[in-house]
């Protein structure tokens, strides 16, 4: 097994119990965290928001969980992931999975480099996410993710 999800989430990649007034600010936070880790430029954040404007809130892939992302582009400097838990749930306009309490930001340089990350993410998010949302520090979150890693 290569790096686990917990190893990939540095302090800069994590924003916990954030205040977001709407889905755009929630996605922007996930983008800001990706930028903070050196994974993306601000343009990628704008691309993630445009993706939802153009294609709808399909990024809300499970109850409470949004996977904010765009496609590989010059705005992606390296493959990365970010984690934003929200203090108050935010409506994305999804018919089944609203409101969102967790936004995971994803940036990939190509179609393959992030597959291990995605597999780890699927393992972690298939479990009980309520506990993950209770984390108040990055250390605590990483410990909970390690417990959830299958």
């Amino acid at each position, binding site marked *: 097994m290569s790096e686990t999800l917990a190893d990939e989430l540095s302090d800069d990649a994590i924003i916990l119990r954030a205040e977001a007034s709407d889905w755009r600010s929630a996605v922007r936070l996930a983008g800001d965290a990706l930028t903070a880790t050196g994974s993306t430029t601000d343009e990628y954040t704008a691309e993630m928001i445009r993706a939802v404007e153009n*294609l709808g809130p399909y990024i809300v892939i499970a109850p409470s969980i949004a996977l904010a992302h765009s496609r590989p582009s010059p705005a992606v400097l390296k493959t990365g992931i970010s984690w934003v838990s929200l203090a108050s749930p935010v409506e994305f306009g999804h018919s089944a999975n609203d409101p969102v309490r967790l936004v995971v930001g994803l940036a990939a340089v190509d179609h393959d480099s992030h597959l291990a990350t995605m597999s780890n993410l699927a393992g972690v998010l298939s479990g009980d996410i309520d506990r993950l949302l209770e984390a108040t520090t990055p250390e605590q979150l990483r410990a909970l993710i390690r417990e959830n890693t299958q």
Partner: protein
Amino acid sequence: MKIVAVCGMGIGTSVLLKMNAEKVLRALGVDADVEAADIGVARGMARDAQIVLTSEELAPEIGDVPANVIVIDNFFDLEEITAKLKAALPE
């Protein structure tokens, strides 16, 4: 059997959907080729696929294809994916 998992960008949700669909198909003992695709290329790929997996928002975008288009609400819910795939698989 060819299955296409479709999302807007081809790197995020479709990849998760492909991974979980493969898990389900393995458990069901079904031999199938699952590919992830973005909406732009999906229409072409769906032409010779038997099943298309996607989200409710994107389903109308797939358009008129011979494939059986299945909408998944919770991409992490293996039970939902199992039930919907089972219903769509040939006997």
